């Protein structure tokens, strides 16, 4: 009976369905955009140099989330080449690159500035898909530098502070692992940006071998692990832990999001925005459909009176109203999910360029990512909304006085 009642005033039912479907579609599109933003930010963070996992001596991770914050610690990971090879042999691992975090002073002509150094293996970074934004000059070459062929990339702010441009020779001074100071001439290969002004003012990037020569050690600080799929990070870590436990030096692996609390903060912000938007959609759909349902109910007062007169309980007539709304919600929700998915395909087809997500440098092509769970969530949401919208009309129907309802015109 509930389903058939929807066909009584087709225009009103259609209006209700349209409102519900647009609400559902708006949710699907918003969810797709949020997922796109999360994924974009996540990949920007991972591919920006963090990698998916970082393996380092267990003690190094305590109390310091950022690898740059650990730059004061001397590189302690010995025998890292064999460990690197073993991890690289594991499934879904694209590459593993050694990294050293260190600090020191850089001088060019009469200018000096403190730097935060990050030493990497450029060939492996490239295999991992890690990218650096070059402002001028070139990236570090894949091959390890020979003696007196050391190269460095300078953060844009640091290069400006030193007055250095690609091709200039600068002097790096840093404490060795034994505590003395050592100096080294390096050639500026390029000027880079991390996307963060504060970091660019101190950032210096070089080859692991250059840093090892400067610091007087064969060790590295950590190994950066790149996977073929970010979603496999937790599984890859779990699979790696037995191998790390075999190491004489206690080692630990930390996931990318632990080292990027910024991601969690941005995610929370987006979730809050999404919830707010969901609340607005909820209110809009509830208010508009509730009114329509009420109109539909008030036109059938005598019919409800008749149903009550012949023995239908208050709860049963109220349930009839709610059931009609739930049917509307089901149909509107299905329509909304289909509409949202269709619009997402259309929008993705248009290839809209979006500004870079927070923390990223490159603009991104809008690619709304609609997951099946989003479609299901939108469907359930619209059904719930219509259910809520029917409560007030249902209560009014349940409270009708039978004799009055029967006399209603």
């Amino acid at each position, binding site marked *: 009976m509930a389903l058939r009642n929807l066909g*009584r005033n087709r225009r009103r039912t259609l209006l209700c369905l349209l409102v519900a479907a647009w609400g559902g579609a708006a949710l699907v599109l918003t969810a797709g955009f949020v997922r796109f933003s999360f994924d974009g930010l996540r990949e920007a963070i991972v591919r920006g140099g963090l990698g998916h996992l970082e393996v380092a001596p267990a003690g190094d991770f305590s109390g310091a989330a950022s690898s740059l914050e650990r730059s004061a610690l001397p590189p302690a990971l010995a025998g890292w080449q064999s460990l690197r090879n073993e991890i690289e042999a594991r499934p879904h691992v694209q590459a593993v690159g050694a990294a050293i975090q260190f600090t020191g002073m850089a001088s060019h002509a009469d200018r000096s500035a403190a730097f935060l150094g990050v030493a990497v293996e450029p060939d492996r970074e490239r295999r991992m898909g890690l990218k650096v934004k070059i402002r001028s000059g070139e990236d570090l070459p894949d091959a390890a530098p020979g003696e007196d062929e050391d190269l460095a990339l300078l953060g844009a702010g640091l290069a400006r502070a030193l007055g250095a441009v690609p091709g200039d020779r600068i002097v790096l001074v840093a404490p060795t692992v034994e505590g003395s100071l050592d100096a080294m001439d390096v050639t500026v290969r390029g000027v880079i940006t991390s996307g963060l002004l504060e970091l660019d003012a101190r950032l210096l990037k070089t080859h692991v071998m250059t840093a090892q020569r400067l610091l007087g050690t064969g060790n590295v600080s950590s190994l950066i692990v790149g996977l073929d799929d970010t979603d496999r990070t937790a599984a890859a870590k779990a699979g790696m832990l037995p191998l790390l436990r075999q190491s004489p030096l206690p080692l630990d692996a930390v996931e990318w999001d632990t080292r990027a609390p910024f991601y969690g903060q941005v995610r929370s912000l987006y979730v809050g925005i999404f919830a707010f938007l969901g609340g607005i959609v909820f209110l809009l759909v509830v208010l508009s459909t509730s009114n329509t349902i009420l109109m539909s109910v008030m036109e059938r007062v005598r*019919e409800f009176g*008749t149903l*009550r*007169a*012949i*023995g239908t309980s*208050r709860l049963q007539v109220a349930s009839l109203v709610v059931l009609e709304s739930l049917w509307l919600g089901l149909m509107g929700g299905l329509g909304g999910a289909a509409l949202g998915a269709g619009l997402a395909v259309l929008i993705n087809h248009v290839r809209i360029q979006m500004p870079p997500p927070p923390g990223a440098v490159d603009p991104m092509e809008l690619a709304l990512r609609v997951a099946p769970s989003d479609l299901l969530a939108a469907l359930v949401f619209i059904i719930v909304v219509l259910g809520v919208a029917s409560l007030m009309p249902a209560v009014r129907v349940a409270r009708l006085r039978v004799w009055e309802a*029967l006399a209603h015109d």
Partner: protein
Amino acid sequence: MTVDAPTTTPLFEARNLTKAYRQGDTVVEALRGVDFAIRSGELVVVAGPSGCGKTTLLNLLGGLDEADQGHVRFAGTDLATCPESGRTLLRRRQLGFVFQSFNLVPVLSAFENVEYGLWLVGVPKAERGRRVDEILAVVGLGERSRRRPAQLSGGERQRVALARALVHDPLAVLADEPTASLDSRTGTTIVDLFARMNREKGTTFVLATHDPAIIDRAPRRLLLCDGLVVGDERIGPS
């Protein structure tokens, strides 16, 4: 109309029934102290001019409304003290209603309109089908049972309404102006059906009407005027 000898136990018993309605600033006294009893198996016409309180009386007898003062007892239950849920169950199981405007559910077929009452009392589907077919055949609508009310004539709709009122074998059927929306010939046919059901099934009928054709044929007439019973006439065996 004739009627078999009714039992002596009152099915309906009204004592000092009073009911007033407020219409704007005016208080309308629909019933002003009504007393009567209707025995099981009777066919009673409540007659009187428009506004005399017929519908109000039927509403109180059917537990659709509550009296301001006095009592209505139906099958031993005092409707004044019975909660709404209890009155709903009484209406569902022991009463049938026929209305002037038929009041059928437009989205249901004739069959489904009649079946609904049986569904309410929890009759199994197969049994429902059998009983609905049977009662629709009795009222002469066996072949048009799949049609919706809009596809039926006024007389046919009222037959469906009567079938709906009778299908669950109620103790009594309350009919408010059942022929007012019908032409006189169709109205006569419907009243004949009421009399037949009363005779064959022993169901008590209380008909509110101001149609002289019905009043003249009634075995018992309860005459109302200005909210008071001004006459209680019986014709034939009592």
